[in-house]
């Protein structure tokens, strides 16, 4: 392993050359090589290293751009109108500009995860020592698949991760520079750079999660990780309530430690929102998960929190206004989000607490995590006492408030889902609050309706108040994030995944910007769990999966096991844990197929693309981080489906199934270029409806390497779902059935009839040892 900045100091050194006194030698890096696997072809790839691989994918999946803005306003030549075939003053086209925006979004996402990782690394190395062993998963040798694959290093301690993070940061700077006026101009090269940002993002994710697993005692790939409590109703509002929001768990850990050290866990409620909540529950399952990002505004507005602690990412930027409205202080714990607050990091805790409790200051910036616990707990306890019996927000009779509604429709117009808010107000005027309550499950909690309302109706609070009976009962179990997939699990499922007998791996990840409420994610999960896919999940999606019960009162975490196997529901954890999902695909190539891992990105991606039937689904994708995570999947050849709002990423990567020339691969056995059909058909796709997504997930799980048995299994799911939701047989089966044995036996007559009508010929679609890489051809004939 490499050691950085090694210093040697000799008071006196005698050698054949003479005697040296006061000699100091500083070496930038020592490579202490303990990894016997030879270095692969692409250690720490630069921006252009994997360009040819990206172009292979982008040749198949050509971008379709849907500009959000027809102008470019990034330099003083502008605004430049790029509409149609116009060019900007710098020469940039609309396609170039759109791909540039995609790349910038991916860079923002990757930077956010890398900055998160850097903060944690610095803090954890200081607290635990850089030599802390990187023990991150049970029964596992491949501890860091992304770091090994991309950087070509095998980290053994948390300090070793610094080299990977240094690399990521250096590359992100290069990428952002490419976005400057007068640099990159080609849209496909911008797309390649977006892929690069995505690859870097997964390294940063992995670094971030591994070091917190190694130091904080989070579950180490345990399929039976404990169940924690989730939901609005899990919080006992009579106690002092600390609400932690964001993604960086370190301040929350200090709060939990303080509660434990002072035996206060029974007296104070600590709950989290968004990924911080996941990681809090991984640290101590007694901390509560209030819910996903969409619960943030609703929960604050309820008045339940007595103290709000924000760390970083996905926090409401108006949290100060929201906290002020309910009369509670805010502790900001990251320099990335100072919120205009005074830096009190170096002030005595008691002084900060006094100012917060008295209201002298509405909040404080305390950027040293180890100082947050005492301030947060003591402040919450005192504020709770001060707020007395009437802390919960009660608007009084909703009909009176609703009577001010002008029925101007501005609320509906501003709502991302065009929810019938105005109709609910009209009903509320008459004392019927049911329509208001029904909005709760559908509302993404953005608050734009309140902002748009010309008479300032507190719409979100009204919805929350109308649905308070349901909210109080909102209590669900969730299996806490287990972290990585164990090597032994990969050995078990590698073969059935690669040959298609496990019909696919569905990763339900991402944010909560859903088109029709949170229930859709659980619907997707259950559909594919019943079909014996492996369902992995993380982040807000993992929370929302918990929030649906069957008739027997059980949710999916109670019904399905947490192991990485057919019919398993695997919650890996927070956003940064997404690296374990792609990491599992990498490990299949390495552990099951024994493909060299070290700095061997193209070959591993080629293997995953052609063999591992994994599909990412970000049904509520919202952020630039989600864009970066998706981009990391694309470069590995994993298709991603987003929900309708995901179309606002403004670019799809779509295959053309009817263009036979687009779907050729090399047969690694003899070098022949053969047609394998359009599998997987798309790389990035926004589905308009849930039903469309269900069908597409099953379809995108097909790969050229499927055995006949595997292809038949996958086709049976595709056909079954298509018939169910589209009311007929699919009309493209001739593109996916390669030979008679591929046809699902129970549907044979129906399918044969369709194939005959399409002029299908057996074995026109080949079943090679598929690769897109010429260099992997073993022998040429």
């Amino acid at each position: 392993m490499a050691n950085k900045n090694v210093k040697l100091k000799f008071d006196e050194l005698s050698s054949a050359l003479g005697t040296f006194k006061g000699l100091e030698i500083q070496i930038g890096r020592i490579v202490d090589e303990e990894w016997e696997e030879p270095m692969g072809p692409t250690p720490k790839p630069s921006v252009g290293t994997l360009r040819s691989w990206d172009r292979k994918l982008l040749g198949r999946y050509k971008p379709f751009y849907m500009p959000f803005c027809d102008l470019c306003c990034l330099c003083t030549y502008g605004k430049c109108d790029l509409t149609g075939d116009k060019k900007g003053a710098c020469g940039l086209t609309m396609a170039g500009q759109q791909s540039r925006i995609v790349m910038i979004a991916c860079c923002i996402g990757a930077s956010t995860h890398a900055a998160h990782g850097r903060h944690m690394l610095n803090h954890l190395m200081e607290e635990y020592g850089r030599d802390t062993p990187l023990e991150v998963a049970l029964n596992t040798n491949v501890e860091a698949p992304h770091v090994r694959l991309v950087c070509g290093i095998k980290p053994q301690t948390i300090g070793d991760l610094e080299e990977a993070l240094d690399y990521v940061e250096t590359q992100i700077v290069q990428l952002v520079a490419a976005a400057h006026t007068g640099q990159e101009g080609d849209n496909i090269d911008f797309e390649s750079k977006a892929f690069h940002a995505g690859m870097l993002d997964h390294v940063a994710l992995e670094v971030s999660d591994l070091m917190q697993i190694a130091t904080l005692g989070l579950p180490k790939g345990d399929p039976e990780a404990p169940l924690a409590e989730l939901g609005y109703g899990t919080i006992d509002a009579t106690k002092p309530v600390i609400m932690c929001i964001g993604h960086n768990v370190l301040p929350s850990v200090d709060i939990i430690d303080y509660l434990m050290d002072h035996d206060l866990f029974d007296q104070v409620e600590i709950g989290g929102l968004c990924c911080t909540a996941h990681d809090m529950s991984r640290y101590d399952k007694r901390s509560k998960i209030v819910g996903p990002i969409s619960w943030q505004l609703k929960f604050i507005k309820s008045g339940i929190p007595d103290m709000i602690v924000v760390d970083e990412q996905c926090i409401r930027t108006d949290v100060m206004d929201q906290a002020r409205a309910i009369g509670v202080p805010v502790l900001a714990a990251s320099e990335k989000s100072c919120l205009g607050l005074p830096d009190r990091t170096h002030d005595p805790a008691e002084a900060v607490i006094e100012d917060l409790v008295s209201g002298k200051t509405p909040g404080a910036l305390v950027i040293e995590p180890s100082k947050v616990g005492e301030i947060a707990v003591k402040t919450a306890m005192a504020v709770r006492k001060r707020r007395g019996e009437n802390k919960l927000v009660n608007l009084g009779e909703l009909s009176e408030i609703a009577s001010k509604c002008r029925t101007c429709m501005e609320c509906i117009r501003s709502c991302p889902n065009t929810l019938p808010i105005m109709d609910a107000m009209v009903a509320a005027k008459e004392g019927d609050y049911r329509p208001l309550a029904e909005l709760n499950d559908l509302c993404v909690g953005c608050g734009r309706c309140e902002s748009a309302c010309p008479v300032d109706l507190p719409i979100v609070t009204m919805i929350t108040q109308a649905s308070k009976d349901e909210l109080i009962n909102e209590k669900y179990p969730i299996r806490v994030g287990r972290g990585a997939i164990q090597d032994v699990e990969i050995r078990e499922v590698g073969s059935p995944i690669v040959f298609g007998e496990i019909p696919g791996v569905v990763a339900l990840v991402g944010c909560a910007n859903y088109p029709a409420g949170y229930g859709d994610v659980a619907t997707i999960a259950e559909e594919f769990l019943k079909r014996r896919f492996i369902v992995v999940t993380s982040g807000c999606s993992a929370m929302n999966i918990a929030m649906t019960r069957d008739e027997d009162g059980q949710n999916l975490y109670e019904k399905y096991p947490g192991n990485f196997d057919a019919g398993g529901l695997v919650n890996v954890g927070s956003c940064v844990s997404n690296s374990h999902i792609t990491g599992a695909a990498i490990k299949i190539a390495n552990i099951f197929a024994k493909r060299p891992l070290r700095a061997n990105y193209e070959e591993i991606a080629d293997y995953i693309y052609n063999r591992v039937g994994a599909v990412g689904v970000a049904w509520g994708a919202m952020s630039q981080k989600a864009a970066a995570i998706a981009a990391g999947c694309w470069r590995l050849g994993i298709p991603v489906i987003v929900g309708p709002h995901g179309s606002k990423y403004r670019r799809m990567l779509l295959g053309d199934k009817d263009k036979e020339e687009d779907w050729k691969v090399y047969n690694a056995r003899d070098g022949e270029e053969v047609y394998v059909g359009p599998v997987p058909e798309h790389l990035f796709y926004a589905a308009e409806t849930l039903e469309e997504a269900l069908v597409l997930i099953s379809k995108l799980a097909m790969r050229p390497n499927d055995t006949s048995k595997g292809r038949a299994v996958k086709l049976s799911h595709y056909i079954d779902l298509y018939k169910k939701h589209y009311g007929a047989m699919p009309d493209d089966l001739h593109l996916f059935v390669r030979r008679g044995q591929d046809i699902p036996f129970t549907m044979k007559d129906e399918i044969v009839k369709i194939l005959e009508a399409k002029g299908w010929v057996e074995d026109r679609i080949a079943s090679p040892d598929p690769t897109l890489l010429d260099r992997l051809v073993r022998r040429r004939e």
Partner: protein
Amino acid sequence: MAAKMNTGQIAEIAGPKKANIFPNADVAANLISKAKRPLLVIGSESTTVKTNDGDLVDTALRAMKNKKVSVVATGHLVGEFRKRGVEKAYSMSIFVLGKHLSDPEWRGFDGKGPYDAVVFAGFPYYMEWLVESGLKNFSKLRTISLERSYQPNAEWSLGWMPEPDWRETVDKIVSSLEEGK
């Protein structure tokens, strides 16, 4: 009732080029009727949009009586056409369709050549907004929005109007198409 010209429509405007608003239903009907190969694109919200025919699917079925009108249902909506006994509606994802429509080489669903007018109805606002943005910038197609809200990225849009007015307008347009069968 005819739609009114209203240049002050509230919408999310992407740039200088934005949709013309039909001054009345006759102009819209003429424009669509004049097309040699019009394509009617029906979105997933069509079953919840009420029209004089019932819902937008029913209205599309009436438009299909004009043989030159091709209809494509997006999302999984084609199942709804099949439930109503109609097999000849095409099915395609809205964005895959957008990509095909922006390809001048695409020969259409029937292989007979490109469409010369594409009419949208029944979509979530932002989805139609986006796909029409793609077509505005990357095709020469005539795009027409029949939504109740102004869709600025179409070439022509009805513009916002009260629901009864919109129903009448759509009815008039489709009746005109039906008469031209």
